């Protein structure tokens, strides 16, 4: 296949579909109890040096208990899929857990501003970056989910985003038109937060799915955190809404308010005060260190973090905000 142009940055993961097939062949398809804790799930599946992806959209439906646990356990040298990441990236950057990033959106928190600490880390030279667009990364995951070694898009053509990617420009064998071939990406492990899951991992997401359906299918190991566990019979009552089947899943952790301080559609809104506090304390590295000790390193679990953030009272306020009922 004639390559007309190619990006110059490193490709962090092997796009060989047969190696992925060999891996998936060994992964069990038995419908067995996969319930565990965030501590055990991270110990087992998020190992130093592995390539990690986080579901959701930055501060919306994120598996924040897993994100905190990764930082608390002090993981190092991870690869990271920086697609639609905001607060999750900010937390992981605070822990300096990654040293290479496939980036589409990093260091920012959308309308809230930029994370000074994440920027410092990215400007430090400690992190290798390869550029992509959001859709290019989704297309990489989708190609992996489809069991092929590359996907096609017309995004990135003609730009420095392409130049600083690891994509290639190819010619369509039917029309002669140019397309960007993006290499399939099978992350070693992904964590996704969902509304409901059964003990086997069958999961239901309510509202937008962002790129999580593709991610769930591309990830070699998948950790599901769920707002609540439901009986398998509840899943079977309405199989149309299941979007992640059990055989993709390695671990299931029940974490109520698991997306906090992020938004969880239909359940609770984001805690903008707490998120603003993150941005504020990042201005002073000393203060930030204390902040991290208080909220992440100095607690035993995500539940303790929720307590330090105001506990049930605060959660109820955020539930009220999510109802969008006028005052």
């Amino acid at each position, binding site marked *: 296949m004639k390559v007309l142009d190619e990006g110059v940055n490193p490709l962090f993961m092997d796009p060989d579909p047969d190696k992925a097939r060999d891996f998936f062949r060994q992964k069990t398809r038995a419908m067995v109890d996969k319930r565990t804790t965030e501590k055990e799930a991270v110990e087992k599946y998020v190992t130093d040096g592995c390539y990690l992806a986080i579901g959701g959209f930055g*501060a919306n439906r994120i598996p924040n208990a897993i994100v905190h646990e990764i930082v608390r356990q002090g993981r190092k040298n991870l690869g990271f899929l920086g697609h639609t990441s905001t607060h999750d990236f900010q937390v992981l950057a605070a822990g300096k857990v990654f040293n290479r990033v496939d980036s589409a959106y990093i260091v920012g928190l*959308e309308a809230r501003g930029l994370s000074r600490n994440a920027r410092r880390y990215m400007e430090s030279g400690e992190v290798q970056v390869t550029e992509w667009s959001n859709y290019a990364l989704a297309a990489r995951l989708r190609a992996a989910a489809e069991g092929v070694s590359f996907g096609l898009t017309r*995004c990135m053509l003609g730009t420095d985003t392409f130049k600083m990617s690891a994509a290639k420009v190819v010619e369509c064998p039917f029309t002669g038109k140019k397309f960007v071939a993006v290499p399939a990406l099978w992350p070693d492990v992904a964590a996704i937060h969902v509304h409901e899951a059964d003990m086997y991992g069958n999961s239901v997401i309510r*509202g937008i799915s*962002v790129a999580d359906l593709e991610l769930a299918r591309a990830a070699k190991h998948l950790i599901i955190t769920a707002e609540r566990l439901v009986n398998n019979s509840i899943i079977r009552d309405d199989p149309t809404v299941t979007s992640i089947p059990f055989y993709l899943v390695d671990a299931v952790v029940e974490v109520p308010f698991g997306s906090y301080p992020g938004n969880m559609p239909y359940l609770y809104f984001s805690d903008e005060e707490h998120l603003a506090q993150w941005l504020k304390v990042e201005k002073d590295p000393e203060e930030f260190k204390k902040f991290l000790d208080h909220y992440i390193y100095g607690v035993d679990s995500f539940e303790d973090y929720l307590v330090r953030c105001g506990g049930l009272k605060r959660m109820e306020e955020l539930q009220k905000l999510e109802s969008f009922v006028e005052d």
Partner: protein
Amino acid sequence: MAPEYNMMELMICVASRYLEDGKTVAVGTGAPCAAAMLAQKTNSPELVILFEAGGVAPQLPQMPISVGDSSTFYRAVMAAGMVEMMTTCARGQVDYAFLGGAQIDKYGNINSTCIGDYYKPKVRFPGSGGANDFASLCWRTMVMTVHEKARFVEKCDFVTSPGFLGGDGGREEAGLPQGGPYKIITDLAVMGFDESTHAMQIESLHPGVEADKVQAETGFELVIPAEIGRTEPPTAEELRILRDEVDPGRLVIGRA
């Protein structure tokens, strides 16, 4: 007596008028979202608002904080995902998208990645996000920004998202589909692009602003047509709807 307004209100009102009825617009948070909401309540009741993370035609209960927060698919007709939205753009079913960035050049190329050398950036910004996708795939991309020389540059430090690239024929040569920048709306003027060269040109000057002021705040030579329009200021009705219905909390229009 003409009503008073701030620059943010002006930009939002002006942007809203460019959004035709029966079309789709992919919006971000803030001013673009306000412009789309205002358009729905004025000239374009059948304008369809889309969010890149999956929200289709929501009944927005408040200004979104994130393009993926719950409000972006509150009572939407569909809550989909990013692939759905971006492939809808790729198929040619998304008319407008709003982009932002740290730098924009004379062909409407945009930088939202970094200032300085890429490998040793002076400042690292978020990067493309969905911006490159929208700029590549939508029919008409729009920008709302303050007009300053550091932002309107001869050459972007990094081209994150494509405008017309090197000018006429640039998109075609790169293999991009038809599309590209449409209107750049600033606190000074509305800029469009010359039909043949695709270089940025002044289309209308905001009340009280002259072309030399716009050129002075621009880091490259603007095309200045013989006849330049004068931006119609916000009407009382537009301002009323914007202030009372679109952004009663003044989250966006209070930022001017």
